């Protein structure tokens, strides 16, 4: 997983499909990122924050009980233990430091489940920046604790009232805001999606997940020190891109991205252009973007990062769907067997491993546990409370 070519292309996917007003800002961002990423001082500052503030490195936990139940050797990469409860903090600290270096004082973000919004609000508080988060009105209702968290952290949260009033529409609103405020605001995009350089830059900020996991596997797994399969959930695909980047160069390691059945861009979509990128997209026959429907607000996105479209096209990774019911079962399964309540997003990855236990028998599997489930317990209490 190297650098994009041409205008931000991963194979035939990616690009810069944005209003003209934003092009100079994206070019400036591309240059600023490359400059910072090559600067040891910047890397040291970010590494320091990731270590002392976010709590990295995150552990690799072996799941003895669940592994035995499924007949596999199972490890979880514990991004749920990061400060703010998910992998999102990796990207946000990187972008906030970069924005500061570029002289921008205001961070804009979109959020689905609220994890990226909370992480952005956190970084803004830490680095003394303004923060405005767009969140679909529907998501604000189902993730009201995260709305409160963001406000507590000093961020302004504005509902996206258009379209399906979920993540896709929050991205639209953030882009519309940025078109008007581009001179002093940085758009802190939360996944490996959008126009170049975001898919590349956000993956680089999450590369730390893959690097750490590869190192931890080398110490814990005998023989070649590699797992057989690496599994991650995919909405936009940032946690998957992060952990895949540690293993993509090893052909023996199978990479699996798990999409929600109701929002499977790669599984059910065809290539299209939205939010600045050419990538797989759920759309109707005319090219109107369709609404994703998933139990998890964080995966409720009709598109997917362009590098995933590329990995799919060249067959380096495969993308598979799981249903909401399978996710609910996995949410309970991991809680009960390992004492780890996963985010509903991350439960998608567990759900696939659980369903495919027969074909995985005897293999070593690493799941990126991208976030913790605290934010989801109110919703899950509604769904499964009676059964407990």
């Amino acid at each position, binding site marked *: 997983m190297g650098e994009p070519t041409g205008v931000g292309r991963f194979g035939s996917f990616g690009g810069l499909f944005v209003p*003209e007003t934003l092009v100079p800002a994206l070019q400036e961002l591309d240059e600023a990122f490359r400059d910072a990423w090559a600067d040891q001082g910047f890397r040291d500052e970010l590494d320091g924050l990731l270590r002392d503030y976010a709590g990295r490195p995150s552990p690799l936990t072996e799941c003895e009980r669940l592994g035995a139940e499924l007949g596999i050797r199972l490890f979880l990469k514990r991004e749920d233990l990061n400060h703010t409860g998910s992998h999102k903090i990796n990207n946000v600290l990187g972008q906030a430091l970069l924005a500061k270096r570029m002289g921008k004082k205001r961070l804009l973000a979109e959020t689905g489940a609220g994890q990226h919004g909370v992480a952005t609000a956190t970084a803004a508080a830490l680095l003394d920046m303004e923060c405005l988060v767009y969140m679909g009105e529907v998501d604000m209702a189902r993730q009201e604790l995260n709305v409160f968290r963001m406000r507590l952290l000093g961020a302004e949260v504005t509902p996206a009232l258009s379209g399906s009033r979920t993540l896709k529409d929050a991205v*639209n609103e953030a882009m519309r805001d940025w078109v008007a405020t581009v001179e002093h605001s940085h758009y802190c995009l939360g996944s490996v999606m959008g126009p170049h350089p975001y898919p590349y830059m956000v993956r680089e900020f999450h590369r730390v997940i893959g690097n750490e996991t590869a190192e931890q596997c080398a110490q814990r797994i005998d023989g070649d020190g590699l797992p057989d399969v690496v599994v991650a959930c995919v909405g936009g695909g940032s946690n998957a891109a992060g952990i895949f980047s540690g293993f993509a160069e090893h052909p023996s390691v199978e990479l699996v991205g798990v999409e929600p059945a109701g929002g499977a861009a790669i599984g059910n979509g065809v290539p299209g252009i939205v939010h600045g990128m050419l990538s797989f*997209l759920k759309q109707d026959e005319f*090219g109107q973007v369709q609404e994703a429907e998933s139990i998890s607000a964080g995966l409720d996105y009709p598109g997917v990062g362009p590098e995933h479209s590329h990995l799919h096209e060249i067959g380096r990774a495969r993308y598979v769907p799981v249903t909401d019911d399978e996710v609910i079962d996995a949410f309970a399964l991991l809680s009960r067997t390992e004492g780890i309540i996963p985010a509903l997003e991350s439960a998608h990855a567990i759900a696939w491993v659980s369903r495919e236990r027969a074909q995985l028998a005897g293999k070593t599997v690493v799941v990126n546990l991208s976030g913790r489930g605290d934010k989801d317990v109110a919703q899950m209490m509604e769904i499964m409370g009676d059964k407990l």
Partner: protein
Amino acid sequence: MTPRNGLTLQTALSTHIAAGGKCFVPYLTGGLPGWEATISAAAAAGVQGIEIGIPFSDPVMDGPVIQHSSQKALDAGATPAAIIDSVASIDVEVPLAVMTYANLVYRFGYERFASELRAAGISGAILPDIPLEEAGPWCEAADGSGVETVMLAAPTADDDRLERVVERARGFVYAVGLLGITGERESLAATSKVIAARLKSMTDKPVLVGVGVSTPQQAVEVSEVADGVVVGSAIVRRILETGSAEAGGELMAEFVEALALG
């Protein structure tokens, strides 16, 4: 079909400008119930060109009014093919351009879209999320079919970039009047005259200012520098509020008249 009145968009606008006129180009959302009548009303109002919106589910360059009209048109079943087909049978002699987003054109197929526009007598296309960097494949198809691709020029571009935008523009250069999305503003943004002046110093192609031009008075003000204006939200709002193509036509006539008086 040849372009309306046999002229290209650029020739039609340039001829009007050479005769001392200023251009008024309204944006009208295609596919709204009764929208064909608004096209005829625009022509009757004496406009120099008409921009027909093909609604997209995620219009990132548009503010609340055009978002709303787009959604309303989509709810009524609007499709790109149906809108283009209808245009073919609308009898107006004003040059026409479509305004839509990249995905609808990509899905349709660039070459097929360009040739269908041409067949319907539509001269130009405005695609706000296809900047220079991504313009190659579409422009090749459009040039091949004789469709004029209007390029947007924004205040954030340096002179070198503006030169390249102007070079690639056909029909007219769409000067983005302010940093922001489409919609009405209380007063004319200072940036609109600045971008118009920068572009006028670079090219003889028509320079029309759009985004944030809301009243006949603002149109006249910016046309002291520019060759004319594109106005969308103010007109679409009037049409949505009154449900009347005639009321839209009256407002368009006010713009035309104000620009004629100067």
